[in-house]
């Protein structure tokens, strides 16, 4: 499976929108998912949007989910989206931190990060399936919860296959996994903190703060100068951790979903 989205212009080359099929989410949820980007000039959007939604819905399963991310100041564009069946699902920000100025200390020697191995997979995937509940896939009532949870297991599995940094946070006393971090190099010296979670029974107990700090120390040791990530504003607990660790925040965007189901037309 390709892990890249191939975009096409709409309604014509260099048109005001671009759409791309998202193969991994389509596979997980069993119907087509598309990513939509809208150019800065949104004139004509109200006319082109319904045509595009109809076109996408007719591509296969009679239903599809289209998502788009809009900078939070583009209110007119957001209004047009809502008028055409899109609903806001979450507001995201991009925390970032210069790692060169980061200094952390390990509080407990028995807690440390190490590379995930094949043997960790059952515990790792169990955490991935159970730790997330506030992301846009779980929040969207049109998407089944079990598939939304499986998405993170799938994401980790592929991260391990493609050589990303997948680390487990482990208590050496009894070799239990407390959590995991999944990071990916996105540019020279820049690492993206793609996914992290703490085993539910250890949540709200300080382990997340220590694991994130350990992760930053490790990234710095590996020579990365900057770490970036994305987080929903719903997730106040982790936003507080980022703020505590010295992250700054930029690029607020609102994610919209549009779930179009034309299957009833067949009957």
């Amino acid at each position, binding site marked *: 499976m390709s892990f890249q989205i191939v975009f096409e212009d709409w309604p014509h080359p260099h048109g005001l929108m671009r759409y791309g099929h998202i193969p991994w989410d389509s596979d997980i949820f069993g119907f087509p998912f598309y990513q939509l980007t809208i150019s800065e000039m949104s004139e004509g959007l109200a006319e082109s949007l319904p045509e595009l939604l109809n076109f996408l819905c007719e591509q296969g399963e009679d239903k599809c989910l289209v998502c788009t991310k809009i900078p939070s100041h583009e209110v007119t564009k957001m209004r047009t989206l809502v008028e055409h069946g899109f609903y806001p699902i979450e507001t995201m920000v991009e925390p970032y931190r210069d790692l060169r100025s980061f200094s952390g200390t390990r509080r*407990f020697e*028995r*807690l440390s990060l190490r590379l995930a191995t094949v043997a960790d997979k059952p515990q790792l995937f169990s955490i991935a399936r159970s730790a997330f509940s506030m992301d846009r896939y779980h929040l969207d009532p049109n998407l089944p919860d079990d598939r939304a949870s499986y998405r993170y297991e799938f994401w980790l599995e592929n991260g391990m296959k493609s050589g990303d940094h997948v680390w487990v946070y482990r*208590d050496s*006393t009894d070799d239990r996994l407390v959590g995991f971090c999944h990071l990916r190099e996105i540019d020279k010296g820049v690492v993206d903190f793609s996914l992290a979670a*703490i085993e539910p*029974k*250890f*949540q*709200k*107990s*300080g*382990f*997340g*703060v*220590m694991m994130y700090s350990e992760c930053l120390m490790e990234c710095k040791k590996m020579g990365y100068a900057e770490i970036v990530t994305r987080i929903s504003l719903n997730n*106040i*607990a982790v936003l*507080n*951790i980022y703020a*505590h660790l010295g992250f700054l925040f930029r690029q607020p965007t609102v994610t919209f979903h549009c779930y179009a189901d034309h299957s009833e037309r067949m009957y």
Partner: protein
Amino acid sequence: MDTFTQLRTLMADILKVSQEEITPETSQDDVKNWDSLQHLNIMLSLEQEFDLTLDVDDLASLTSVSAILKHINSTCPSR
């Protein structure tokens, strides 16, 4: 000052709630601000204030005022 009063002052200060909101029955689920970061701050303050050394297991188990009080009383018998 008795142990509970001392603990209540410390916790109310960290969790930014009134002292009345911290009772011997209070647990993590009762206080919205008692998240991972504030839990760690409470644990670090307990070590300083009560001269304790907490380990990894304590972090996971001291999630209510009664559990914290019990731990303080058992590790500092003079209290």
